[in-house]
């Protein structure tokens, strides 16, 4: 192993891991503080299978709810995401930056570089888990929350192995394909789909067996928080992780490494083919460089297509699932105490509206859309600066204001596409699942979702315009999004803070229950005005600043 490769990778990434770990720790603290305010006695009256679903040990109180919702899920997804980003940049990222050649020009073998990178992924995952462990050790004492029966240590061991699993998976794909987007896309897709599957399939007895085909099952399926470490599952995950290192070893050893360079996509091939060249040139070739709007949209077309199809299929799937979930499970949902309904996101999952809102619209759909809009907002200005293309762009006879506005137009267009896909998917899903929700309700919710996405994209744009740094814009906007969600979903549970939830943009998205009731045009207006305001703030910030790149 190479100590300096290990240390450099660690140093490059430690801040991100630290921010991720600390955020989850803070969320845990805040979550527990809020759950403490709720009368948790109802938990003891829940049917056993529901405790299973929430992965709560019997007799768990507030702590179980907090740890279950935050560490078990948000913690694992955050850490998994960090590890995927680390893993995909390990080999493929250095290739894309053109730094791998330089690294390998030193007397070091590809194998040793690979092993050092793998060690860095493990080290950083361990650091993140230790941060969570620290938070989990301190918080309950601080808030005097009862921790009886909670095996936090076991959960964290599972969490660590799970994190390393996704990191190594991304590294292996990156090592074979040399593409960071492929590596992170496949790994993150597998992680999120697994998480959803493990949450939903057990509700439907015919599909229950399918959960075992998703790696997430071996992390969460045995419910380590309640049942302790499941060594068999851990061994499977760890074994697969080692397998990924071996796969990466073979992949990186046999391939011609790239140094910068580009991919050849479908469009490039069609353009080279004399039969299709003309048509493709017309629609995809020169069309995408016809102006700033087209170029910006085209730069994000792949991600937009992915986000739009994810939301389309999710809408469809949840409709199908709605039909498949047995009556008795729905009955349980319907009998849940109000406080618990509030604690798990405010949706009454016993109704079709609540099911769609709870499973899809409250969290998954916003996250998917935020990924897109925040990225577009971030890259719009800061991205061009960091890639050193801003100089040439601004040297064109176009004012900074117009550059910004045209990027915003592209953002609105892309978000609208995702909104339409969400509508079409959930509407069709509703028809298939016989949910009995009027199409106009899905349309209204999708419209509000689109506007909420634009607001977060607008936040990224403002930060991007003010600082010209992609990391500030992306992290800042994500933080705002997280806080907004938090304020919206938790403040209403606390007596004195109820009114404050109106400060959150989420309030204007789901606060009016758009799947159940007629759309509140005032809410549409608030979100739209907020977005326009953010753009209006971004313009002078961008116009006044010294640009880089």
């Amino acid at each position: 192993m190479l100590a300096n490769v290990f240390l450099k990778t660690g140093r490059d990434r430690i801040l991100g891991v630290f921010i991720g770990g600390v955020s989850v720790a803070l969320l845990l603290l805040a979550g527990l503080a809020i759950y403490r305010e709720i009368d948790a006695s109802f938990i003891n009256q829940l049917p056993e299978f529901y405790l299973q679903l929430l992965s709560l040990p019997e007799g768990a109180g507030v702590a179980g709810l907090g740890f279950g919702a935050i560490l078990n899920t948000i913690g694992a997804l955050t850490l998994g995401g960090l590890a995927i980003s680390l893993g995909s940049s390990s080999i493929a990222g250095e290739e894309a930056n053109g730094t791998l050649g330089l690294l390998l020009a030193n007397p070091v073998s590809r194998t040793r570089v690979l092993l050092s990178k793998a060690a860095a992924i493990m080290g950083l995952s361990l650091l993140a888990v230790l941060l969570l462990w620290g938070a989990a050790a301190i918080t309950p004492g601080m808030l005097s929350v009862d921790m009886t029966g909670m095996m936090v240590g076991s959960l964290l061991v599972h969490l660590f192995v799970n994190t390393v699993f996704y990191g190594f998976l991304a590294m292996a794909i990156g090592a074979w394909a040399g593409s960071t987007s492929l590596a992170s896309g496949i790994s993150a897709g597998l992680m999120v789909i697994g998480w959803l599957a493990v949450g939903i399939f057990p509700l439907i007895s015919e599909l229950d067996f399918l959960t075992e085909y998703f790696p997430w099952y071996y992390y969460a399926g045995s419910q380590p928080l309640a049942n302790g470490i499941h060594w068999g599952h851990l061994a499977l995950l760890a074994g697969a992780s080692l397998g990924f290192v071996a796969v990466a070893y073979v992949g990186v050893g046999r391939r011609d490494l790239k140094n910068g360079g580009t991919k050849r996509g479908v469009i490039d091939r069609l353009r080279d083919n004399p039969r299709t060249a003309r048509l493709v040139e017309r629609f995809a070739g020169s069309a995408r460089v016809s102006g700033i709007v087209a170029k910006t949209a085209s730069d994000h077309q792949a991600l937009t297509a992915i986000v739009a199809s994810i939301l389309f299929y999710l809408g469809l799937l949840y409709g199908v699932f709605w039909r498949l979930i047995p009556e008795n499970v729905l009955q349980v949902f319907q009998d849940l105490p109000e406080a618990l309904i509030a604690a798990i996101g405010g949706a009454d999952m016993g109704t079709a509206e609540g099911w769609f809102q709870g499973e899809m619209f409250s969290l998954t759909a916003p996250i998917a859309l935020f990924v897109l809009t925040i990225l577009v907002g971030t890259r719009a200005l800061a991205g061009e600066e960091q890639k050193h293309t801003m100089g040439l762009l601004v040297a064109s006879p176009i004012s900074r204001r117009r550059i910004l506005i045209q990027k915003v137009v592209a953002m609105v267009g892309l978000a609208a596409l995702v909104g339409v896909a969400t509508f079409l998917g959930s509407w069709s899903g509703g028809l298939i699942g016989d949910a009995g929700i009027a199409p106009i309700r899905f349309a209204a919710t999708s419209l509000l979702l689109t506007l909420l996405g634009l607001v977060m994209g607008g936040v990224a744009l403002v930060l991007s315009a003010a600082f010209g740094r992609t990391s500030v814009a992306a992290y800042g906007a994500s933080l705002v999004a997280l806080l907004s969600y938090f304020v919206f979903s938790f403040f209403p549970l606390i007596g004195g803070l109820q009114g404050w939830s109106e400060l959150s943009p989420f309030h204007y998205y789901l606060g009016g229950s758009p799947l159940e009731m007629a759309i509140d045009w005032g809410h549409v207006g608030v979100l739209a005005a907020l977005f326009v305001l953010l753009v209006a703030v971004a313009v002078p910030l961008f116009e006044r600043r010294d640009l880089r790149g």
Partner: protein
Amino acid sequence: MNGNLAIETKSLTKHYGDVEALTNLDLQVRMGEVFGFLGPNGAGKTTTIRTILDLIRPTSGTASILGMDSHQKSVEIRNHIGYVPDDLSMYPNLTGRDTLTYFSNLRGGVDWSYVDQLAERLDSDLSRKIGDLSSGNRQKVGLIQAFMNKPRLLIMDEPSTGLDPLVQKEFQAMMREVAEEGRSVFLSSHTLSEVQRVADRVGIIRSGVLVEVESVQSLRSKAIRRVEFEFDGSPNSSEFETLPGVRGIELHENRAVISYDGKIDALLQAATRHHNVVDLIIEEADLEEIFLTYYRDAERDTPVKA
């Protein structure tokens, strides 16, 4: 503001916090000339260019391009300029032609036959993606981008980075043609041989201060030359010492090597007064020597005595 000037800066100053990147820069670039802007790394060349292009804003002072205020009229100005940034980056997933299409669309279109002509002169393959090109070939696309709208003023920051000698020569010819058509070139460089070949005048910048602006001709005439005489007898240092412009004398048996920045005529007369000259070598004064002189000056902070 003077309409016959391509670039005019008045007391242009730029501070980054405590760092003075530019201090009271007064610069005039005329129409119809190639102006070489010389200085070592970190002297303030790029800061000057980015300031006059309105990418960054001066702490104080003003700049005007083609008689227009560089900030107030920045959009109007950009209709008339071509720009090659240092450390040129473009969109790696676009082909050369896509890139040029994009920038030409932002300019409201260009004459494509001229673009093809430029591509041919620079031997540039526009069908390949920028990300797959070597840095020299990428630079060619950047140059075409700057030349393609026949701008009245070309502002180029280290433009010949990575170009092979043949293409460099063609590029230099292109710059001369621009000047001959009455347009201007502002060429920031530390490639002295290039500046020497194409520039009419040069400005030398050191630590953010413009230390000299002169024509290449007069700079060269002022330069210290190494003049080596071979005599039919042993020369004596007293024969040269009194001559104005002599900066140093080395004597070896029949040879004398004189560092000299005066008129050649006078030196020849002094040399032939006592001996016959058997052989004579006068090294061409080049900007490199002048350039180094300026920077040695800076290091020692005293005038050079060779």
